[in-house]
């Protein structure tokens, strides 16, 4: 499974890309492979406050609806509009075109509690 080196990871299989005070959030290759057949993405609302470890979005595969937990606190500033017509981008491009939402980080020190690529690789075996 692909685990890019430039990202931080949550134990619940989300990734975050940090650029300045902005974070882009998605689910990992491992997570999309487990879910398979993603058919609907319910993104957070722009302007919503998301909290580390709390549900921020829902990704639905054919078989189940899965909560997506925010890796860190922040305010949602953008959601990936293309997922509304092409939810399968989360399967085909989990780290690029299949990103879920962007936040303005409100508590960047929380990033230290996330997993490094090596730690996440160890987690998923």
């Amino acid at each position, binding site marked *: 499974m692909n685990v890019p080196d430039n990202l931080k990871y949550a134990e619940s299989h989300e990734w975050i890309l940090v650029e300045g005070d902005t974070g882009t959030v998605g689910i990992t290759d491992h997570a999309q492979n487990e879910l398979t057949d993603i058919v609907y993405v319910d993104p957070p609302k722009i302007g919503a406050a998301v909290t580390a470890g709390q549900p921020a979005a829902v990704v639905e595969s054919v*078989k189940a609806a899965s909560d997506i937990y925010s890796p860190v606190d922040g305010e949602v500033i953008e959601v990936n509009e293309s997922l*509304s017509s092409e939810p399968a981008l989360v399967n085909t491009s989990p780290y690029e075109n299949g990103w879920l939402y962007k936040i303005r980080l409100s508590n960047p020190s929380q990033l230290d509690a996330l997993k490094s690529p090596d730690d996440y690789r160890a987690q998923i075996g």
Partner: protein
Amino acid sequence: MTFEPRRTVLYDLQKAAGARCINFGGWDMPVQFTSIIDEHRAVRTSCGVFDISHMGEVFVSGPRAFDWLQHLLANDLAKCPVGGGQYTFLLNERGGVIDDLIIYRMAEDNFLLLVNAAKIDEDVAWLQKHATDGVTIDNRSDKMSALAVQGPEAARIFREVFQCEMPARNTFIAMEKCRGAIIAAGTGYTGENGFELFFANSLAGDIWAAVLKAGAKPCGLGARDTLRLEMCYPLNGSDLSPDRTPLEAGLGMFVALDKANFLGRDALLAQKAAGLPAKLVALRMTEKSPPPRAHYPVLIDGQPVGETTSGALSPSLAEGIALAYLPPGLTKPGQVVEIDIRGRPFTAVVEKKPFYRPSSTRTA
């Protein structure tokens, strides 16, 4: 209480074929191999094979078997000739569904009941509770395995594997093939042409391999569920329950109210006379929405009027579909309702059943 999920004899072979398993009715069963959507499409366009060994095989025989079953089952067994299969129900005294099953008439006085995995113990206990002289109940569920091979290519696969013609819909043949006795029935749960095979556990590996070699794609319970839902075939435990009658489920054509007394008949007649309190309807989402799933509230003018019992994104139609019990007056095709998905209402409409008509189905 803890218990280990049970495994069919094909478990290891299916894991080797890439199965991802879930607990279903106490069984560790493949939910999918590659993708539910791919497997669903394989059944609609070519052929898929499902391990249904978790289902129960209960044989009932003896000089009084016919009369006894005629009293315990809701459909008219007199209309099921030797070599035929019939969809029917075990009902409680209130007319509620204990189980829905297919009964195969092996001989005048010998029957095979194919029952739901999660209901084997309950069904057998119910049968034994009503046991009488002249009837033998033989639960062979642990000794037998079963495969369902479904799709437009099923007839070709049957010929290739068994060198004879696939049995017609709702009939079966008993064969000596693959060094053992096999019951092959023209039945299924997908709406496509196809067959189901019942045989001793020792034959499972060979038959599984032969069917795969002939071109059937391994499929899991995920696709089995979306396929049956497109056909509006009910799933016991979801769409059927001891508190709902087959009349409410819209399955009155499988209930012979005109035959002599059977268990639950009085309750059904009373319900019919009083008017059905609810009816199981097919709902199709008419706006873009998350996939509907079981236990979502159904609303009219924001007020709950029922809840979904099953739901999915239909891979064939690319639309959300669901079943729900709705009260009288709201069950006609064209009725507009809303389904509450995580607190947001989405518009749906009552559809005529089924949602999908397979191209391969011959006129029955």
